């Protein structure tokens, strides 16, 4: 078995002096999908931010079996870890195409970038239609698609997604999760998804962790979590 692509051990994270995450352990299998579940304010977003070195962290993060040395956000991205942030992080004043070109900013392999443009336009035909449009004028769902497409153009080996379903209509959410599955299975991108919509996330994930006030309450194979009675009652609502 190959090493997990990402493994956090006793990970702590801070906003300034305030500690928000208190020693969590979790892993993302190489080629796998892990989801972090939990209520608002549990610290899920903070964990993603800690991985991307956007905030101060302590503890250990292994990437491909070795400690992640990157200490700056841009270096984490350059390792091949793309992050779809909460709020989508759209460059609102730039065009859709410029947003996408920024996604591929660090890549030098021009022909492969061109091919990847075609690939993301195949996933998200709406973006192709609107490539000259100012990105800030897109709808919420389209901006979410743009954020995922931008992240894919980095050609990541690991994709961090912060609430990809947030604020979107159910049909669009289903669409986006279908594409995420394809990204995972066809393009072999490992995913770490933070979600409040537990049903949706557990469908896609092979591992799941339930986060509460900055700690892992329970974690393991997604099927186990799904069948755990207390989780089901508290978070899945049946």
């Amino acid at each position, binding site marked *: 078995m190959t090493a997990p692509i990402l493994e956090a051990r006793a990970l702590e994270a801070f906003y300034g002096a305030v500690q928000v995450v208190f020693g969590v352990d979790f892993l993302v299998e190489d080629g796998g999908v892990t989801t972090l579940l939990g209520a608002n304010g549990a610290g899920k977003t903070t964990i993603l931010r800690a991985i991307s070195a956007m905030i101060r962290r302590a503890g250990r993060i292994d990437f491909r079996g070795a400690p992640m040395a990157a200490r700056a*956000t*841009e270096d984490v991205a350059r390792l091949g870890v793309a992050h779809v942030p909460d709020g989508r992080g759209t460059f609102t004043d*730039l065009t859709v195409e410029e947003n996408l*070109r*920024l*996604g591929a900013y*660090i890549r030098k392999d021009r022909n492969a970038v061109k091919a990847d443009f075609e690939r993301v336009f195949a996933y998200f035909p709406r973006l192709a239609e609107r490539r000259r449009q100012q990105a800030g004028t897109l709808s919420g769902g389209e901006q979410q698609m743009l954020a995922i497409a931008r992240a894919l153009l980095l050609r990541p080996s690991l994709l961090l997604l912060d609430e990809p379903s947030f604020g979107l209509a159910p049909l669009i959410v289903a669409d986006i999760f279908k594409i995420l599955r394809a990204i995972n299975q066809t393009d072999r991108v490992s995913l770490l998804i933070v979600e409040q919509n537990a049903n949706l996330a557990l469908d896609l994930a092979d591992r799941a962790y339930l986060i509460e006030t900055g700690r892992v309450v329970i974690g393991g194979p997604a099927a186990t979590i799904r069948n755990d009675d207390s989780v089901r009652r508290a978070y899945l609502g049946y």
Partner: protein
Amino acid sequence: MVEFLHQFASGLALGGVYAITALALVMIYQATHLVNFAQGEMAMFSTYFAWKLIDSGTPYWLAFVATVLVSFVAGLLIQRFIVRPFARAPILASVIVFIGLAFIFNAMAGWLYGYTIQSFDSPFPGRPWFGNVYMSAHESGAVLVTFAVLALVYGFFRFTPLGLAMRASAQNPVSSRLVGIRVGWMLAIGWGLAAAIGSVAGMMAAPIVYLDPNMMSGILLYSFAGAVLGGIDNPWGAVLGGFVVGVLENLVGAYLVGAEVKLSVALVIIVGVLVVRPSGLFGRRIVARV
């Protein structure tokens, strides 16, 4: 009428200088929301550098290119070593740093080159071009150089990946880092570009206003007026504002108030715009939700 057109045309020439200085101000403002009060003195210092090169026998255009490049590097280093440590400090601290920089450059120029006013040769031939009777050769040349600079800056930001990354960093530094852009360096390059553009403004202004350590103080004020008039967050508005202020300054100076008090025109414009339309003619009005 001829006199009026003459005043109008020479207003355009100095207006070009204001326009590119305003552009330099806007570039730094967009990235940091701070106005670099040392922009003028940096340009003045660059102009002395060019003057020294030309004085020691360097051909004009070689000295021009060398000055632009050296100014770029100097601007970059100033950002890395002097401005950057204050990135997280309160705005007032940065403002004081900029004002301090202005004094330092002013005093250094006086100390190194003296306070006597020097003439600075124009690279353009003595005779007016194409029978253009309204502008001197230098004025026409300065306008051409202005447009060349504007075209280059536009091309850089519009068509190069680095220009795109700089626009992205100014707009959304967090997302920029997430796609791997080294935002800190983009800021430094922005300072380098602003310093380089400013040096061109200085070299174009010097044959008109003559070279002395205080040559840019008035120009910076007019440029700031231009930037405020056009909208400090809109590069093209600022450029247009610079030209408008140049022309207005000349006309008002010639017909209304006389040359002695025409600097107050800039102040009237600044105050007037801030009272009537704080975002400038083309600026974006920012409505903050409280």
